[in-house]
């Protein structure tokens, strides 16, 4: 799943705080990219493991007890933006993608 090469996603300025976007990877998989209120960028697999729908990017971003999370829009489970682990059911998780910002561009590495 993890792409081998660097994939530019979009300009950092295209991200709105706490509103995710989805990006399509060369292998056809999808990544949800988030900018937090504090300015951190996170990337998770876009597919919600509970529904199978590719929608995590459209979830509400916030925190659970200080842990930054995105809440799946389908059945409302929260996922830790840093680890991909489901806060409501830790045996479930989504893959985390390494992400960086270089020269104002968000890149998956």
């Amino acid at each position, binding site marked *: 799943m993890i792409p081998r090469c660097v994939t530019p996603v979009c300009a950092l300025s295209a991200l709105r705080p706490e509103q995710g976007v989805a990006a399509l990877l060369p292998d056809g998989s999808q990544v949800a990219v988030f900018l937090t209120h504090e300015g951190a960028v996170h990337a998770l697999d876009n597919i919600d493991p509970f529904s199978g729908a590719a929608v995590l990017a459209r979830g*509400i971003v916030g925190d*659970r007890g200080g842990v930054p999370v995105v809440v799946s829009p389908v059945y409302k489970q929260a996922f830790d933006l840093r680890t991909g682990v489901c806060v409501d059911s830790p045996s*479930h998780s989504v893959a985390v993608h390494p992400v960086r910002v270089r020269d104002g561009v968000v890149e998956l590495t």
Partner: protein
Amino acid sequence: MTLPNNPMQLVVIGHGMVGHRLVEALRAKDVSGTWRIVVFGEEKRPAYDRVALSSYVDTWRSESLELAPLEGADIRLGETVVSVDRERRVVTSASGVEVSYDALVLATGSTPFVPPVPGRDLPGCHVYRTIDDLDAIRETVKSAHGSGRRAGMVLGGGLLGLEAANALRGMGISPHVVELAPRLMPIQVDEGGAGLLKRLVEKLDLTVHTGTSASSIERDGSRLIAKLANGVELDLDVVVFSAGIRPRTDLDLGLELGPRGGYAVDEGCRTSDPDVYAIGECAAIGGTVYGLVAPGYSMAEVVADRLLGGAAEFPGADLSTKLKLLGVDVASFGDAHATTEGALEVVVNNAVAGTYSKLVVSDDAKTLLGGILVGDAAQYAMLRPLVGKEVPAGLLEPGGNAELSLPADAQVCSCHAITKQTITDAICAGVCTDVPTIKACTKAGTGCGSCVPLLKQLLTECGVEQSKALCEHFDHSRAELFEIVRATRVTSFSALVEKHGRGRGCDICKPAVASILASLGNGHVLGGEQASLQDTNDKFLANMQRNGTYSVVPRIPGGEITPEKLIVIGEVARDFGLYTKITGGQRIDLFGATVDQLPQIWRRLVDAGFESGHAYGKALRTVKSCVGTTWCRYGVQDSVGLAIDLELRYRGLRSPHKLKSAVSGCARECAEARGKDFGVIATENGWNLYVGGNGGFTPRHADLIASDVDTETLIRYIDRFLMFYIRTADRLQRTSAWVEGMDGGLDHLRDVIINDSLGICAELEEAMAAHVGGYADEWRGVLEDPEKLARFQSFVNAPGTPDPTISFREERGQKVPVQLGIPEVAR
């Protein structure tokens, strides 16, 4: 239900509240069907809520007093029993019907006492006991053509007399209340309390004459002239006698009677004939006749148990009362007059605040015996169950507001004789999680409603998370946050959470705050930071489906649509390959649109004159209509026209939960208005307004709140209702649960919305006017703003590329989603 071959026959004489309860209780307990039940009722309608009789004046609709319909009993309405042959065990009705019995229950209630004043039989003189009595009073008032101020006299200044006076006020009559005793409500209230009560009711246009009585009533042309013993002469349109009641024992069975009338019964409610029982207001139990419904209900339960071989005994009665009329609180409980030997009184009389309270305690000041509260009876619910128990620490100190906790056996709901234990057991068993579920499973709170605040407290005591905190980020309830946002004019979530909360919010508080901001008119729901607060559906102004696609629902006000517009919908659906379905809300849903397609679809729809139907929002959904006068041969008003007006007025209104409405053109109710949050049914004279209806998980019929109003008044009431709901409801609380959980119930709601008891109606109307004036179509707003439009794409790095996980197959000639494989998790 199937009965055993030889069931026994129970005959009940009297279909009042207590007779009704007996049948309910017996049917519930008699699982094997031992008893067949025949009920005779003299009144032409089934038993109704006599306790709430006075509220009939608000609507003149008897439906609002209906009790739960009885099943499994043969009920003969409009049939008076005229004789009972105890030898043959047969009763005979006025029409000559004979029915035999194995057991007989007398539940004949009481008759109003009319003192022997000369002229008491004149037309225009009435009693106050039945719906028919109130209809007759209304007729008299309607036909009285007196010029100038219209006046009435109520003879009797007790609890019922004051209720009757209030009812007259409701009919536009200035009431004179004449009471023989030196003070009002002599049975419940002492001199100090009655003094304040008199001052308070006189402010409400009541004239009080105490220590005197009427010596004659005469007719003078179209007027009635009453002469009082103290020489005062009153010029009147109507007279109502409310001078007490007498147990109704006109059926002469030759049974023993109590010292002050009533069929004498033992602790098992048996009369001197072991096959004959008496319950309710016609029974004298231990020599006492109780004029309240709760002891009657206890007797009904006792007899139901006895008929099935049990040995239940009458548990005694609580004579506490709370009068919630005239806007004046009066409560009296326990030994209110300190008749217990050595009883001490603690009186606080605050003439400035207009409150009076007296607590009666035992000589050692350790036990609470009773009390009287006038002006402010907020403490009543808590104090009443403490009678006979230890005085809580701090209660007797000046201004004392002790932390009160009830013992387990304290009776919390006296209407239904439910103890704290029963309620806490139900809560601890996890059956009850809030006030509506307590009402449903224990009946507590479904009578006069005065114990509802206590029910809430018991939930808290049991550790049921009644914390009003919205979520971990805010300690406030939704209603409190609404007030904060309104008062401080905060316009962003970030500012609100920084000042009044903590953290960065979550899927609970963000949409709730987004809704509050939208209710208060803060521009487009996707404007600036607001977009990050919205639930998925609001974020894309469409409903997300299971495969991540969306459905599109254009508004079709009232369900009325031109052929041209229908064709547009058809064309759009065809061109974008959308599955179409007629919804349950009289409009059309188009399914299977991807995020990228939404703006293109809406461009076509908006150009053709459609706008958002808010199927995605906690907002007004639809106002359904029936065809009404225009086409229907029964219609009495233009239901389609009104439905469209209402839908256009409230479209886009964000609320704690979704809002639905309907308008029916006549009482046949084809639009199902009573299943809606607010429903309107046409009458010959205008409209009836119903509120708090719900389909869904817990269906509830809406309650009538105003009747025969004109369109302008109707809209004013709906404006107020909706804005009051928006201000005070919890997050995701439909109006039905909101009404159910409201302290003071429907009466309170009616008071606020119709009588403006909180003085906020002008504000509520203004808020609605601002909403109506500020409305703009959300989808047009998106199409006109490139920044908002930019969000409607599947992939930020590959605009226009369709989401590869979405695929469709065909079913019945339309496309439907291919179910997604859910690899890791079994749901």
